[in-house]
């Protein structure tokens, strides 16, 4: 069976140890985590967690069931299985910006609608937001110029509302 990337949206009780239980579940049962993003929801007693993982159908089924089995987990949705969803990730990229490349970097920012959030004599720090494909494209284009450092948030995702009336 083909391995596929899945984005899981998980609501958990905002209690100490909940995140450790989830991380422990993945390491203990040999599942992969590509990225993990956690923050409070509108309801402060619940945290929202977006988790990107990989596996064939049976593994993903096990992962979802095992997550649901944790007492602290309130809800698990496989966003990848939803018809339409929005995915976003943000990266901060510190890129070398010498005299001869400064203009090039800015032009790239413009094309990809990135923001320059910090400037030093020899670097720009760029904020880029979008689906992972866009982040990947920006990174690939900036690499030849010289990336000094990257920090990425990991993916977050949300199901789209139905648009029909």
């Amino acid at each position, binding site marked *: 069976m083909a391995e596929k990337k899945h984005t899981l949206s998980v609501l*958990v*009780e905002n209690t*100490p*140890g909940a995140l*450790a*239980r989830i991380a*422990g*579940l993945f390491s*203990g049962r040999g599942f992969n985590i590509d990225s993990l993003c956690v923050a409070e929801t509108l309801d402060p007693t619940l945290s929202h967690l977006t988790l990107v993982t990989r596996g064939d159908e*049976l593994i993903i*089924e*096990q992962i979802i*069931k*095992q997550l*649901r*089995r944790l*007492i*602290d*987990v*309130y809800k698990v949705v496989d966003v990848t299985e939803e018809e339409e969803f929005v995915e976003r990730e943000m990266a901060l990229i510190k890129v070398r910006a010498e005299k001869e490349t400064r203009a090039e970097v800015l032009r790239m920012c413009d094309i990809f609608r990135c923001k320059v959030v910090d400037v030093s004599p020899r670097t720009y720090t760029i904020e880029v937001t979008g689906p992972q494909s866009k982040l990947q494209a920006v990174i690939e284009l900036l690499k030849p110029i010289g990336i000094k450092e990257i920090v990425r948030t990991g993916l977050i995702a949300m199901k789209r509302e139905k648009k029909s009336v």
Partner: protein
Amino acid sequence: MTGAQMIVEALKREGVEVIFGYPGGAVIDIYDELYKTPEIKHVLVRHEQGAAHAADGYARSTGKVGVCLVTSGPGATNTVTGIATAYMDSIPVVILTGQVPTRLIGNDAFQEVDITGITRPCTKHNFLVKRTEDLPWVLKAAFHIARTGRPGPVLVDLPKDVQQGKAEFHWPEEIRLRSYQPVYDPHPRQVERAYRLLESSTRPVVLVGGGVIASGAHEELLELAERLHLPVTMTLMGLGGFPGTHPQSLGMLGMHGTYYANMAVANSDLILAVGARFDDRVTGKVDAFAPMAKIIHIDIDPTSIQKNVRVDVPIVGDCKRALEKLLQIVKEVGRPEKIWREQFKDWWEQIEIWKKRYPLTYKQDPEYIKPQFVIEKLYELTRGEAIVATEVGQNQMWTAQYYKFDRPRTLITSGGLGTMGFGFPAAIGAQMGNPGKLVIDVAGDGSIQMNIQEMATAMEQGLPIKVIILNNGYLGMVRQWQELFYERRYSAVKFQVLPDFVKLAEAYGALGLRATRPEEVEPVLKQALESDRLTLVDIHIAPEEGVFPMVPAGRATTEMILV
């Protein structure tokens, strides 16, 4: 009310009658309250592992939640094997551990250990209580989680200042956890599909697991099996879930299962699995497991379904309710019993051929005592009415094969984790929960030494447990593997020194007996069964006797070594 008072009050309200424990600095306040609470019996063990196993044995034999109380640090870590044992077999236990005061947590304080961290992967859930006022709710939740859904151990870590703090006691009569809502009622359409599969099958087998015992579904199972005339096989954990003496019983399946049970499963066209989880000891090589069979799988835990084998009809729910529903359909459709019998006639004929070809058997010996013979005699003399705990290894498998368990909660054994040293403390728990009944621990000379210190506990409580040591001077199961698969290189399995078990028994004030020849077995067992105090029987068995049939690990269940 102080926290310690609240804890004891909560235990009372949960109906706790007995606690197995060991005191220490971090739980003195709770022990001080227990001192004033005669209605809760405290059993002082000799090692905290014994407390955890005893609470487990109490739970397995009574169906109630077992409770264990220990101090922080080493007290807590000593229970971990017991917790993992209960977790693997889905046994409801609540473990209360003391903890250093909250302000010292994370400080590497004296006898501090992160027990919630350590036990996270081997508990159903655990709690670290940080405020005294949270105690009633947390304890209520702990018992609720332990006994509902797929049962399991729940640990509650209790810092000393939380025990000493004061707050008002608000007991929640009902508890509802939004994130924990186990599904009990099966999906009706799935049960209908299951029924249709049964109707169209010609070679069905019912596979009974521990879930039948946990949910108390044995009566429904018996009714269904008899009405439809289905062959029934059991996992180790399922023994007693269906009467072992019933003509439709094929006995245990799997690595040391009967030839006919494994052959029936391998050749079946339909498996109705009830509360079993298709463990590797049951399936053997998974790819070769029951290749022609469709599988109906009833389990309360969705993660068990489709984990190891593909399932055609998953039924998530309580085994008892699912079987009730299935029986209801059987009755509504009202197919005459004759038709069912007719449908499975050829299948039963085939099974009878397998039964005759390789029955469960062993060779008697005029000189050496055969362990199988000991278990058969034990079965005969107790008329199958004892609660039998086992240790782990050959003693466990011989007991599973030759003691015919007719009723649920009469075999107390560590199935999933395979914990040596489990049986004796578990027998203590079982005897505490079943004061009038005969409780036996079948042991090996290896495993009995793993928790032998609990003899003092059993003596102190006046428990007339009978410990039958099948003494071959070896760690027999490992020796058997070395004999069969490692060209008899007996590495580290021969004990150069064994205690004199008779004298050891006497040293504790117990009765010690010994049998070294076949003709001594019956009189010695009789004498043991008549004894009214703790009795240790040292039976010297044929040293190199093996457990057969055997499916080598990782092989198809049809590739049995029969001997």
